[in-house]
């Protein structure tokens, strides 16, 4: 764990020094692009006049206190900018995650059980198309069809323009209306991936001896599948839940940018476009840490559902 944290911060630190010519170049560029205040902030944040290792240690100290400095764009605290973006991204991703599990698990399990049936073949092909489809293209097509041609769904933002005289229920409906397309697009690829994953897990389990035993002792198919096979096949899904933690907060750069949703992904993208280094680095480090956290949760979760795994021994 500790070496990982060290490594993550080190790599992030190296990236900020990637700019051609190093920090000096950044400073020079900033004089053109940003105010003297911003340059001062940058210099203070990274201590650009000091030797590299001192800079790194200084930065690490600030980082532990979640002090990522202030944004070049509007001078606000980076951590504050990040925190205010989290709720909307989290909402969208939790809803998407719910739909992903709702559709993907039955799809995967049934195509495994009915292997080589028409259902399995159609699902398999759809799944391949699903994870070969560029998200942003799918989003564009849906925007054209439902937004432009049919006019059924809004194609950008989170709420309608005139919300002043709406009741809270209408507000809720309005919000839901705006979220349909983003959530659909966000779930699409996930459904493909997860159903493929649960299908192959299920196939793996069905091949096991204890399933053959259950069949041999005359249990009904339904009982074998749902009682014996399913539980074991779904265990690794706990891992997936853990692994989706970073995605929950990280959000999708593309979907949020495309639908003009003010979440983490969009913040990251606009910061990247504006070369707002403190914000970029802040989000990057947070993203990496969430991944770490997710991995940890996945391991713990797996150890809980699978009695064969003991924590502390791999």
């Amino acid at each position, binding site marked *: 764990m500790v070496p990982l944290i060290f490594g993550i911060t080190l790599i992030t630190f190296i990236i900020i020094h990637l700019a051609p010519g190093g920090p000096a170049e950044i400073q020079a560029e900033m004089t053109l692009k940003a105010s003297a205040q911003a340059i001062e902030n940058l210099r203070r944040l990274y201590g650009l006049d000091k030797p590299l290792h001192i800079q790194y240690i200084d930065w690490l100290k600030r980082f532990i206190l979640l002090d990522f400095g202030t944004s070049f764009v509007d001078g606000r605290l980076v951590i504050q900018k990040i925190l205010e973006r989290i709720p909307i991204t989290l909402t969208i991703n939790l809803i998407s995650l719910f739909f992903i599990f709702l559709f993907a698990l039955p799809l995967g399990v049934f195509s495994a059980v009915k292997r080589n049936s028409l259902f399995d073949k159609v699902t398999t092909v759809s799944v391949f198309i699903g994870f070969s489809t560029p998200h*942003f293209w799918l989003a564009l097509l849906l925007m054209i069809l439902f937004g432009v041609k049919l006019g059924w769904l809004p194609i950008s933002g989170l709420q309608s323009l005139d919300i002043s005289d709406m009741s809270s229920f209408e507000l809720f409906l309005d919000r839901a209306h705006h979220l349909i397309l983003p959530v659909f697009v966000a779930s699409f690829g996930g459904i493909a991936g997860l159903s493929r994953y649960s299908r192959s897990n299920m196939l793996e389990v069905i091949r096991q001896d204890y399933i053959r035993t259950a069949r041999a002792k005359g249990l009904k198919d339904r009982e074998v599948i749902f009682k014996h096979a399913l539980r074991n096949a779904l265990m690794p899904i706990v891992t997936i839940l853990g692994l989706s933690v970073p995605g929950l907060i990280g959000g999708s750069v593309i979907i949020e940018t495309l639908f003009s949703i003010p979440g983490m992904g969009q913040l990251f993208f606009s910061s990247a476009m504006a070369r707002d280094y403190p914000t970029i680095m802040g989000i990057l480090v947070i993203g990496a840490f969430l991944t770490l956290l997710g991995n940890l949760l996945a391991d713990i979760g797996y150890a809980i559902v699978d009695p064969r795994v003991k924590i502390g021994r791999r």
Partner: protein
Amino acid sequence: MGLLRIIGKRFYRNKLSLAGAVVVFLVITIALLAPILSPYDPAEIDLNNILSPPSRSHLLGTDELGRDVLSRMLWGSRISLSVGFVAVGIAIFIGVIFGSIAGYYGRWIDTLLMRFVDIMLTFPTLFLILAVIAIVGPSIFLIMLIIGLTGWMDVARLVRAEFLTLKERDFVLAARAIGVRDIRIIFRHILPNALAPVFVVATLGVAGAILIESALSFLGLGVQPPTPSWGNILTSGKNYIEVAWWLSLFPGLAILLTVLSYNLIGEGLRDAIDPRLWGSEGE
């Protein structure tokens, strides 16, 4: 040779993967012949023909500068192709070196290298790529490089796993016994035996790289106009979403078809080289 023939036969039997291979072959041909096939110069601006829908003279319509979309897509296939291959080439190069050294030497070298792999895996790939591009500035070479640099970890893990078992085999012990140098054992004796699964990951990797490049170009951080790429034609599609559906539909379809084909090939290869599936027919 026997093994290769079995794999070839099994791959051939998988109709979907075969179809994928045909499409990939076509796309490569199109990319190579783009100058001959294109009905127009992809950069030729025709202000009398702005945003005209698909017609006989412009089969897939024109964009906001009156450029022929079909010609731009034909040329754009070169970008997808080269990004896919170069990025994956870089990823495999790094992955193979990391994986084989870690797997062969084991112990602290293994721990050190694999820890680095873990660290790299914790970064959300697209965020990392965007951060680097934002700092260094977008260019096609940077994109190939950065997709490769963020995509080698799977290869490394795979190669390492192969090496862990292969290095205990008799032919390796024999080579070591007669004093063959480590480098030679790693690259001449073990590596060729470890490559089969790498091809699978490589094929799937090409698909992934094409998707990432198109997304980056779409966001304006990839291939820069006027150079046509499937992704940046889609940017026009987004800008003129209200009036020009053809700018969105066709380039995306090309991406989908190409990526799908690589994925199908990869999956077919995976099934073909998996000995557990040999003998079980009718998949």
